[in-house]
């Protein structure tokens, strides 16, 4: 089941929350939706789930348009929204039954389906409690259970791990990974490690526009370009070492680190590596190379670069 977003625009008043974006999510793909607060992630997701209608453009889920066949689209989608609103005065089992009925699951299958969801989402001990009595983590599981109960082909998760403890985060990530093998998942987050750990593809949006699209490695490669090394050298004077390094022609920039004697951050020229040269230089001068760490561009940096003006 694929999702096709075509020239989607949403205006709130005169403000364009989402500005003419188009993308596709292929079947079986886990797409990570990244962006700073207010970038338009949630608006886009609400539009895919037919809660908000687009100002312009169209979204198709499995070939059905959200404009002309919203009820068909809604049936295909399991949605966990950002605040995870739930009926707090309903017991967990009653709530799951209500959602199952709404999703049109056959009466004789409902019991089994609820039992499965309770097991998958780890709600066994809490199933008779009212939702209002549950902790945040368990409520999140109820939210997941209601999103998955009708076995939808498309899953939309808006910040699914907000407010959970590290164990629960790991559990939910594993769950999303295993679901993602057979289903199309769109997941929004501003935790970059999470997106990297769970998603096949990353889409970064800022101010309502797509600013990057690709796998984590793609994005990294694109942003990195040059080799950056941190080195420490012992056995010589700071100044001598600095001068010696300056002689190496593959190096473009040297930056002494203020905290440590004889430590430098070195940027090489485009497409060149300075590692060998640095090593031979040390051997020639009789110095000891005590540290040489390649500095990888982190996803955080890419994110900052793309979304800070």
């Amino acid at each position, binding site marked *: 089941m694929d999702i096709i977003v075509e020239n989607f625009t949403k205006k709130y008043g005169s403000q364009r929350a989402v500005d003419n974006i188009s993308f596709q999510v292929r079947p079986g793909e886990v797409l990570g939706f990244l962006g700073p607060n207010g970038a338009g992630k949630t608006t886009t997701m609400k539009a895919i789930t037919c*809660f*908000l209608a687009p100002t312009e453009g169209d979204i198709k889920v499995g070939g059905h348009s959200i404009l002309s066949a919203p009820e068909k689209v809604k*049936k295909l989608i399991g949605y966990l929204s950002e605040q995870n609103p739930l*009926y*707090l005065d309903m017991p967990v089992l009653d709530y799951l039954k209500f959602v199952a009925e*709404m999703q049109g699951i056959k009466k004789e299958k409902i019991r089994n389906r609820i039992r499965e969801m309770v097991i998958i989402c780890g709600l066994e001990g809490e199933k008779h409690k009212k939702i209002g009595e549950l902790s945040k983590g368990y409520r999140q599981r109820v939210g997941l259970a209601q999103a998955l109960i009708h076995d939808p082909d498309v899953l939309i998760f808006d910040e699914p791990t907000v407010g959970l403890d590290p164990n629960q985060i790991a559990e939910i990530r594993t769950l999303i990974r295993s679901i993602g093998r057979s289903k199309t998942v769109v997941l929004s987050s501003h935790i970059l490690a999470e997106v990297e750990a769970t998603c096949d593809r990353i889409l970064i949006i800022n101010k309502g526009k797509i600013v990057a699209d690709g796998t984590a490695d793609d994005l990294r490669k694109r942003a990195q370009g040059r080799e950056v090394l941190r080195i420490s050298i012992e056995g010589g004077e700071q100044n001598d070492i600095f001068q010696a390094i300056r002689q190496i022609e593959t190096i473009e920039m040297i930056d002494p680190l203020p905290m440590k004697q004889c430590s430098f951050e070195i940027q090489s020229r485009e497409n060149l590596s300075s590692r060998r040269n640095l090593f031979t230089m040390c051997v020639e001068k009789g110095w000891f190379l005590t540290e040489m760490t390649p500095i990888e561009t982190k996803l955080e940096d890419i994110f900052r670069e793309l979304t800070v003006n």
Partner: protein
Amino acid sequence: MKLIWIITKRELKSFFDSLMAYIMIIAFLGFTGFFTWLYGADVFFVNQASLQSFFGISYWTLFFFIPALTMRLIAEENKTGTIELLLTKPVNDWQVVMGKFLGTLLLIVIALALTIPYYITVINLGKIDHGAVWSGYPGLILMSAAYISIGLFASSITNNQIIAFLLAIFIGIMFHIIFDVLANNMAGTIGGIFSYLSISSHFESISRGVIDSKDLIYFLSITFICLFSTETVLAKRNLVD
């Protein structure tokens, strides 16, 4: 149709889960019982085997109770955000509105059904005008439908329950008293219009045993207009502004 029924069931159940339904039913039976049998123009004082005093007091009790029932229906969902959850399920706005409306109406019907012992008692007291009773109950239900839809509309335009309650009372009091007072003070066509708009004149004729299509159309059109407005307010999130 099935989806409407699922929402209706949930609404009705949540009234009972939150004790709201029990409080409402007990208070309703308490008030109507007190004024029908014990105090004021009660059955023994009037010395007639009729349920007129019961219909009179129900007319007032429901006017105050219904906004208290309807105030949370949509306002609460707006506030907690559960409306998003509901509307991203395979239902349309109209089904949600209808489900909530019918859930509340069903609760009123249950409360009214519990007053059938009054009817049985009065039958044993003397000769009763069955026609007036058999049209009085539908009259109350029609009136309740109108007030529920007004309350539902009030609840849909705010996410504050108190405001929804006051607004429903405010709109309700127009139909309940103010149009009637205006009608009495004005002559001619304008007076006629206000008299037609007033709920009391329509309710009185029904509770006397006369079911006129004019009254039926009146109640049903208030109900329909308010439900339709509620749906429009819900759909407003989709409007391009």
